[in-house]
């Protein structure tokens, strides 16, 4: 008699590798449908369910390369990276990495060097979409901070705030590919830094100038307002630093990026 664990291993092996040729005597033949046909319902549903998850998570990648190529890549991903998650929400988490790893080995990816960046962008939008809520700092809170406290201030950004760098015109490609109806757009090499976040339940993104990118990255790593001003001073005129810092902060607060401030010392 086969034990429960062995039956479950055999069943799962069939789902993962329906072509493995293993004898399936553990399924009783009944009625008009053969054992292998019955089992194939599970194996086919497995692949199509997970492919559909990737289609939903990566609509622009799907649109960019079409059903056939997307289907082939998705099926390879499903075979190579079976789900270890209780929720389908997380299944596609390394699809961008997978595309990046495979770009040199799969012929149909050879002319698509930007595809993994597009996937990374879509996944990050998803992360911002259901990131945790947090309190939001408002302009009044900022106004009540005494002047001598400012140099030592550290900023806590909301959990929905993500930073991403691209070598291609990914956000404009994404906009065109997900437009209704979709528009064609050419992939162009274009270095850029982007901010992705959620405000009032809507996922947003915008580009960052170099000085904003530097101060934002520094503050998100725990740098103080004083450190931030120093990094701004390396980019712009010394006289403009406080005006620029104040303008950036105001913008971040209005966009709902900052949860809280604390004094570092």
């Amino acid at each position: 008699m086969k034990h429960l664990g062995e039956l479950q291993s055999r069943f799962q092996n069939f789902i993962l590798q329906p072509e493995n040729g293993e004898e399936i005597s553990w399924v009783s033949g009944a009625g008009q449908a053969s054992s292998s046909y019955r089992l194939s319902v599970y194996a086919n549903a497995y692949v199509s369910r997970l492919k559909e998850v990737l289609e939903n998570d990566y609509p622009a990648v799907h649109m960019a390369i079409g059903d056939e190529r997307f289907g082939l890549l998705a099926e390879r991903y499903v075979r190579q990276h079976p789900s270890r998650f209780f929720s389908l929400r997380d299944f596609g988490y390394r699809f961008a990495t997978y595309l990046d790893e495979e770009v040199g080995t799969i012929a149909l990816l050879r002319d698509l060097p930007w595809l993994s960046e597009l996937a990374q962008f879509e996944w990050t939008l998803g992360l911002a979409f259901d990131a945790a809520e947090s309190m939001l700092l408002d302009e009044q809170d900022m106004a009540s901070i005494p002047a001598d406290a400012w140099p030592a201030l550290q900023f806590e950004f909301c959990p929905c705030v993500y930073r991403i760098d691209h070598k291609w015109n990914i956000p404009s490609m994404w906009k065109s590919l997900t437009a209704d109806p979709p528009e064609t757009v050419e992939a162009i090499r274009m270095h850029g830094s982007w901010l992705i976040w959620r405000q009032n339940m809507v996922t947003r993104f915008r580009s960052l100038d170099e000085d904003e990118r530097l101060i934002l990255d520094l503050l998100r790593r725990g740098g103080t307002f004083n450190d931030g001003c120093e990094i701004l001073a390396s980019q712009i005129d010394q006289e403009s630093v406080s005006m620029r810092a104040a303008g950036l902060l105001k913008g971040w607060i209005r966009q709902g990026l900052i949860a809280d401030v604390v004094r570092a010392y």
Partner: protein
Amino acid sequence: MIETKANQRPFLGYGLGLRRQHYDDVLDTRPDVDWFEIISENYMVDGGKPLHYLDRIREHYPMVMHGVSLSIGSTEPLNYHYLDKLKALIKRVEPAWFSDHLCWTGVDKLNMHDLLPLPYTEEALDHVVERIARVQDYLGRQMLIENVSSYINYSESQLTEWDFLREVAERADCLVLLDINNIYVSAYNHDFDAVEYLRAMPSERIYQIHLAGHTQEKNLIVDTHDHPIADPVYELYAEAVRRFGRISTMIERDDNIPPLMDLLNELDRVRSIGNRVFEDQVA
């Protein structure tokens, strides 16, 4: 059978599975749905729209929670990380009850994201009963366990599916979510009598009924939840109400999701069958 003092299970009325396509319609039109069932895993996220809509809709409707990842029949250890998330969601939603399936979803730390059938053996029975008891202890409440549809039978099975389900419910002291469509699908696929299945059910433990559509494939019916409920499933539902009395009943639609109005019309048909059969029994 009628509701007596000895058999007073809660009756929530007639409900729908809550789907994101209908969030705004539900809030804007407050449709005549007595309650909603949510898929628990869809709300095990940190924030954003899913939880925003969940909380707002919960303000207006009773809810029950329905899980797909408990994997109660798996030989893997129970996933306490999952159970902690479930516990937190139960605290947030305060559902009338929560349910999951009499199935397993994967071994070797993998998840097939499917409701895979169990062999109906004494070994599997002991295993499932012990795990349901542990889950109920951990969460501090009884759970509903649902029959799944299936396409295979194991050579090792010693019991019928209905004897297995009844034994599980009685030994683990859990409740039952009876999926009438799943009984119909499996009866066709395995050539058994669906009414015999109903006859074996422990009436007092059935707290909820699922109805759904399916797809006829070559020599098999596949449980796709992408069509309206089929007529024979309505007939089997009427038979269930005749036998068990009034039970909270809902429609599950997971694919090819129509406008909310279509589901409300379908739910009206369910409601009228449920109420008519019940009133005939009482009379």
